[in-house]
């Protein structure tokens, strides 16, 4: 009260305070800390690389741009993180392509089941389509600073799954709310059991589940391999990771610094492609060394798996709300690549 009465009587003081406030505000624009949440646990390649990028950015912008990470899901699940980004409590996140599909369905375009046979095919498509996804997310208010390979997911089971028919009667896990996996297994005549990732290990131990899918590094890190015996060596789906920042927050960074942030994080995520691929290779060999048997379905059986995925594709495209034209474009590039290889 004392302050307000004094201020009323002293316009000069009010002006001074306003000027000071403006200065403070402009200082805030000069120096910004982006708070970024992720489910990636500390100690992972993702965290190590992103921290490396953050310290390089801080150094190159003379401390004007800092990135503070909240790893391991401490800020909640994806929906919570997105909500916190909307209210400005967080400025960004490192997400899976699938989880960003809440904002922009095509973010999980590359995860359509059984469309890719190899990393080379993925690289060919990504070179031609990453920019489209980045633009799609930009239209939804997200600045994507990097996209990275997360690897191929494989099916693992307590018995060898050679034929599609072997899946019948299996207790198959699907990540809760994952419409793609649900649609794919439905096409194969199987009703998957929805569970959060956190419950899979126990589910395998208690016999609630006997069939799961994951990338090799995940299967090792979460110790699921201790309860299964076979891995069907056919890439089930490709996974990606994305580092996205709220565009309003990003615009508060000075243009010159924006360039630095994009350049450094872009490079870091490119590096992650190679790191993650090597990690997954190493994890595959570790699984073999621990006695997990790799099952290789023959050509005819593999075609069978793919044809089921193909049959269900329309359902997946509509259920996952993909843009059909983008799906066609991706499939076109894959055909193009395969023709070139023949």
């Amino acid at each position, binding site marked *: 009260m004392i302050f307000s009465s004094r201020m009323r009587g002293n316009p000069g003081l009010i002006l001074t305070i306003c000027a000071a406030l403006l200065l403070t505000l402009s200082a805030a624009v000069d120096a910004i800390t982006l708070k970024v949440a992720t*489910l*990636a646990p500390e100690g992972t390649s993702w965290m190590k690389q992103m921290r490396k990028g953050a310290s390089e950015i801080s150094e190159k912008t003379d401390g004007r741009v800092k990135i503070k990470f909240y790893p391991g899901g401490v800020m909640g699940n994806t929906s919570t993180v997105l909500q916190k980004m909307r209210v400005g409590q967080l400025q960004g996140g490192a997400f899976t392509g699938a989880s960003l599909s809440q904002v922009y369905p095509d973010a999980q375009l590359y995860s359509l089941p059984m469309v890719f046979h190899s990393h080379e095919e993925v690289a060919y498509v990504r070179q031609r389509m990453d920019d489209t996804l980045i633009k799609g997310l930009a239209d939804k208010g997200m600045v994507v600073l990097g996209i990275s390979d997360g690897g191929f997911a494989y099916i693992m089971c307590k018995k060898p799954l050679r034929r599609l028919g072997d899946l019948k009667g299996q207790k198959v896990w699907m990540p809760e709310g994952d419409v793609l996996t649900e649609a794919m297994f439905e096409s194969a005549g199987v009703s998957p059991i929805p569970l959060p990732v*956190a419950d*899979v290990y126990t589910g395998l131990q208690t016999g609630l589940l006997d069939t799961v899918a994951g990338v090799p*590094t995940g299967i090792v890190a*979460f110790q699921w391999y201790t309860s299964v015996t076979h891995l069907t060596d056919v890439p089930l*789906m490709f996974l990606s990771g994305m580092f996205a920042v709220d565009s309003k927050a990003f615009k508060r960074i000075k243009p010159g610094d924006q360039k630095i942030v994009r350049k450094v994080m872009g490079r870091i995520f490119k590096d992650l492609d190679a790191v993650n691929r090597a990690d*997954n290779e190493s994890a595959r060999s570790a699984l073999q060394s621990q006695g997990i048997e790799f099952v290789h379905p023959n050509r005819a059986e593999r075609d069978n798996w793919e044809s089921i995925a193909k049959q269900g594709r329309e359902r997946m495209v509509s259920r996952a709300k993909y843009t059909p034209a983008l799906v066609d474009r991706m499939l076109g590039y894959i055909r193009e690549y395969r023709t070139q290889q023949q």
Partner: protein
Amino acid sequence: MYLQHASAITRITLIPLLLALALASGCSSMVARATGNLSDSLSRAVLNQNDPETVRQGAPTFLLMLDGFINDDPDNQALLLSGSRLYGAYASAFVDNEERQRRLANKAFHYGRRAVCVSHNDFCAVIDKPFVTFKEHVTDFNTGDVPLLFGFASAWATWIQANSDDWNATIQLPKVAALMDRVIELDETYNHGNAHLYMGVLTTQLPPEYGGKPEVGRQHFERANELSAGHNLMVNVLFAKYYARLVFNQELHDKLLNEVLASNTEAPELTLSNVLAQQQARELLEDSHDFF
């Protein structure tokens, strides 16, 4: 979706499990059998040393001495176990160069493996087998085997830590956990309750989102504190570093570490480890603001 974030764990960062973890028991008396009272006194002097640098510089002589004894008596289980402990402890506590650390940890692991194989043929045959087979043989160990079991398991943990960029190493962690669990079943008080300390670290590697159970880890840390009557300062350092950071609890993190810094380091067979614990507590506190 299918876990690509967590999937990218390249390195489950077990902290260097310090000298005291490996040295604190058994070793002195075993070496004594071979080398008499001199060695016994030396081991005790190492554990009670309050200047880590003295140990860093002096330990290699001791290691070479043990290599010599083992060469002369290659199936002497007590000597093999001592060699395993000393090499493991030295590698994790005093060697920064990664390549050297791997080399020394490798030696620790292989001495430990040889020690186990002297008396436990069936278990020896399943060390590299799939986890399910391995686990069936964990009960081959009984109360009298606890020093051997704990020594081998801790050397294995050190080896995994030194090779943590290699998934072929990381994948062996559940086997170490199974052995430490067996130690706890047989005699949880052994070595100041350090099997609980290992289990605390092993169970605080994954966030709950991926099936991790930090609260189980917390219970292990708390039990390790009880069993060492609060004298083992390394417990609270690892409690802060693994549990408090995993659950993002800065208040607890800083409180535990400040307690370590305010504690007396002198304790029988724990002085060296406690001095190192304080060094690490200081480093973690300095990094606290950046992490949280």
